[in-house]
């Protein structure tokens, strides 16, 4: 069996971004479905107010996250790969029940398994942009428009609203499955701990074995991976 080392996987901003995004998605979903008249909790006016503030919070967070992903090169984590894709799916369907090892090794420069890569990329380039754009149209597009954005000629809120609602259901389904899948790490809580503290026990291995499709690792990352030997851990 390979040895485990505690590795600083999730940086400060990354965790900040992750948890705020989680919180905002929760707030947006909760107030959003109240606006949708699925239930009454805050009252319509307050729900709309919170939803709109949270939406702006989310947009600001996204701007920072995009900046962070590009300046750190972390965006490469999301480059999709077919390598191990089938193996990963088989792991979730069968292997996991037989205590089989995770097919894709989690390393600093390849934190995401092939399925995660696909799903998170989908979130980033499809679902979240669709929600943001339809949400902004919801906020700002009025029919009939004056001369301001007359070029977008949507004569009814319906299409915008339906897209926004559909996206909300998809995101909720994602959150549901995501909440479950974080229990599928080395131990039930290891993924959660990692996203809270930043530190995770990873299998120690040779740098050469790393997944090449993840692109070239940032030099700094390789030179200074901030790896602590296990015995220094205070846990």
């Amino acid at each position, binding site marked *: 069996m390979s040895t485990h080392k505690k590795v600083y996987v999730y940086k400060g901003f990354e965790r900040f971004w992750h948890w705020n995004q989680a919180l905002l998605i929760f707030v947006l979903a909760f107030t959003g479905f109240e606006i*949708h008249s699925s239930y009454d909790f805050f009252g319509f006016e307050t729900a709309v107010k919170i939803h709109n503030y949270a939406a702006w919070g989310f947009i600001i967070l996204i701007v920072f996250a995009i900046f962070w992903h590009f300046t750190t090169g972390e965006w490469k984590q999301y480059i999709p790969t077919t390598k191990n894709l089938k193996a990963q799916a088989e792991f979730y369907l069968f292997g996991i029940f037989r205590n089989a090892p995770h097919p894709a090794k989690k390393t600093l420069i390849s934190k995401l398994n092939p399925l995660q890569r696909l799903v998170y990329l989908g979130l980033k380039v499809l679902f979240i942009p669709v929600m943001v754009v339809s949400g902004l149209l919801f906020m700002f597009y009025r029919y009939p428009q004056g001369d301001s954005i007359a070029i977008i000629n949507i004569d009814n809120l319906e299409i915008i609203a339906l897209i926004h609602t559909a996206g909300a259901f998809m995101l909720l389904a994602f959150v549901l499955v995501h909440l479950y899948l974080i229990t599928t790490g080395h131990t039930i809580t290891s993924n959660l701990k990692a996203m809270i*503290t930043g530190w995770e026990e990873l299998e120690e291995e040779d740098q050469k074995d790393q997944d090449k499709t993840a692109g070239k690792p940032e030099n700094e990352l390789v030179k200074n991976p901030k790896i602590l030997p296990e015995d220094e851990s205070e846990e």
Partner: protein
Amino acid sequence: MKSYTKPITFFLAIVAPLLIVTLVLREPEPDHKLLNGLRAKYAVKRKPGVDHSKFEILQKDFTNPHEITAACLSCHTERGEELMHSAHFTWEREAYIPGRGITYLGKKNLINNFCTGVQSNEGSCMKCHAGYGWSDKTFDFSNPYNIDCIVCHDNTGTYEKASGAAGYPKTGPGGPDFKAIVTSVGQPKSANCGTCHFGGGGGNNVKHGDLELGLLTGGRDVDVHMGVDGLNMNCVDCHTAENHKMKGRYYAVSSSNTQRLNCEDCHTAFPHQKSILNEHSIKVACQTCHIPVYAKVNATKMYWDWATATRKKDGKEYELLDKEGNVVYTSIKGDFVWEKMVKPEYFWFNGTADHHLLTDKVDTTQNILRINTLFGEYRDRNSKIIPVKVHRGRQPYDAENLTIIQAKLWDKDKGKGALWLDLDWERSIEEGMAYIPLPYSGKHSFIKTEMFMPVNHMVSPASEAVTCRECHTRDNGRLAALTDFYMPGRDRNRTLDLAGQLLLILSFAGVLVHSVIRALSSRKQKTIQSH
């Protein structure tokens, strides 16, 4: 535990404040500069520039009301010409109506579903005409001395036109004190306007629902502008006039989008502190939220069934009252339904309207005849949602010619075919139609009618305004009948919602099944290992 203290500090230092700032961000303190400016403006009551008691020409005992008008016009030389072109005198307006061209319509020749119309009934109806002597078609609209100045400009509150006198007041003993009236004339008071605009249709608040005597004595809760405990504004503070052309329109008789009086004229198009409310004003008229109910003080007539008129009890005409003293049946008029604190109905409206004319054919394939039609729809950029009183009823129409009928209701004497005196439908219809003159086949029936009367008064204080959920709600919201647009909170796509719910259920079920198998298999593996 060092690895945990850092994230906790991190949460407290950054995430928590962000949370608080995001969720508890308060609205800016309300800025009432505009409103306070308006309050200051209307707190100063207008003082007249002249004292009419000092004019020699008014220092006499008038016996003929035409002489009063002549005295007025001797100084106000051009006002007669102005008034002769105003709707208060002509009872018609020149308007372009799509499909009809240029029309001359008004109370003079339109029908309604209250007392149905003035033609052949002038002697009685003209109690509310700003003139003297319009008893039949021979009335001279070009004679300025036929104008009644004092019905509007009396400030003593004692002037009254006589009933059934075609607009003349009583003269001589028992009549108004003309000298007192003419020496104190001034800008019209609300009571002057109210004489006709509150009492139209035969009694207080019968017609409008939002215009009634209660406005003269009610507080801000009845009308935020006219409330005696508020600014106590007069009708003419808003309904200003230039050359005797009043601002404001009523679409039971008006047709075109001109000369209107809008809340925005004083309050601006975006008066709210909350931008989300301001945005509503693109599609929602101010009145829609700010007049949650009308007929706040006294009941208004909501239904008038002419078909039940002319019934007798023991050979005599009779009347029935409800608990509050409202007449709910009378032999001369039929059945009524009265309502108080009425929620308006809502319609799109762009400021133009059409009317069903006496010469128009009745479409019997439609269940209900629209006496007037308010134009507007969601897609029309000039349309806004407005509150409307819909007055419903049944009234006579010609079953063969398929035209609506104008019956003769009133006369001074019995035996001349007036329905209210003789209780004979056939005769009254023959007389009424012959007067206009329009053909009558001799066969009448009754048809359901609807009349659409925009509600503009009885504005409530802002705290009473319609709240979000009253419209943004799944079922039975105030705007439930306006289905030509998508409204958040009301509308949804059932298929999409069902699919979404199914997706969530399946995801949850998948997670559940997966976790159960995981738990079972890990126990099994542990058992194997322990063996």
